């Protein structure tokens, strides 16, 4: 198995807030991240599979890029994540939650394709912080 990774960037604004908490509690936990601010996110999407005997490729990287742009970049780039992305009406737009929603968006589009599967979402929020998501859940886990 070989892992191939496509890297893209998008820029978005967000703020952290838990609507179930008081203003004071939000300020205590989230501090300055409670103000609307933004990041230049770098997203690395890794797909795993065997290279095709015909093309020598695990997956056409142009097709992967087009998929990422349609499913992720067009949805998030130059947006306010809290206001413009319905998913974040319910959830805080942390890099953790972003990685999970990006996984779900891409996995649905990669499903059913032969010979490869989504392996990892790596999302860099800045030069010194990134999150990795492999599609795992704690509790009620079942192997599929």
């Amino acid at each position: 198995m070989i892992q191939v990774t496509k890297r893209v960037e998008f820029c978005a604004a967000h703020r952290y807030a838990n609507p179930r908490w008081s203003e004071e509690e939000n300020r205590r936990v989230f501090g300055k991240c409670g103000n609307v601010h933004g990041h230049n996110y770098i997203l690395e999407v890794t797909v795993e599979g065997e290279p095709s005997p015909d093309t020598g490729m695990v997956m056409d990287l142009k097709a992967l890029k087009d998929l990422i742009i349609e499913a992720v970049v067009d949805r998030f780039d130059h947006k306010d994540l809290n206001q413009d992305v319905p998913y974040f009406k319910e959830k805080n737009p942390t890099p953790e939650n972003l990685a999970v929603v990006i996984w779900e968006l891409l996995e649905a589009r990669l499903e059913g394709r032969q010979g490869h599967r989504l392996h990892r979402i790596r999302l860099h929020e800045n030069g010194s912080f990134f999150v990795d998501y492999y599609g795992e859940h704690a509790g009620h886990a079942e192997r599929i």
Partner: protein
Amino acid sequence: MPRESEPERSAGGVPVVEITRSYGFSAAHRLHNPRFSLADNARIYGRCNNPNGHGHTYRLEVTIRGPVSPETGWVEAGPALDAVVRTQVLRRFDRMTLDHLITPTDGPTSTSEVLVALLWRILDGALPAGRLCHLRLEETPNNFFDLDRDGADGLARPVFTTPADRGQKVGPA
């Protein structure tokens, strides 16, 4: 980190995410094993055995893994990571001579292999149980050293002590 087994997935349950933050510290050291002869030390460690030592700007990537809190959207223990690394690692090692802080129980000399294992024991002991997932120690941009839980479990586990822990003065006399 990539793992052999298939990740567990389900429609329900809390997502488990790994977060990585990177930190920097600057330290001096000299690779020298007192059980070797001077000639052997010079032969084995080469320029790293320079009697007056040398130094590096180390970069440390710390990865912790855990469920995403439904309340904050953060991996639990994530918000505490900076403080743990600052107090347990940066305060201890930044602007220090590593050879004063590494004892024979940690390893023969202050290689990055020995140092990353020592950093694992320090951080694994200071973070909530089982959260530490991976360490990458970059000695230079071209040399880096990775340790994960399987690797750390496979290492001998000496008792961690430094001169500071034993109440002795550390750093230059």
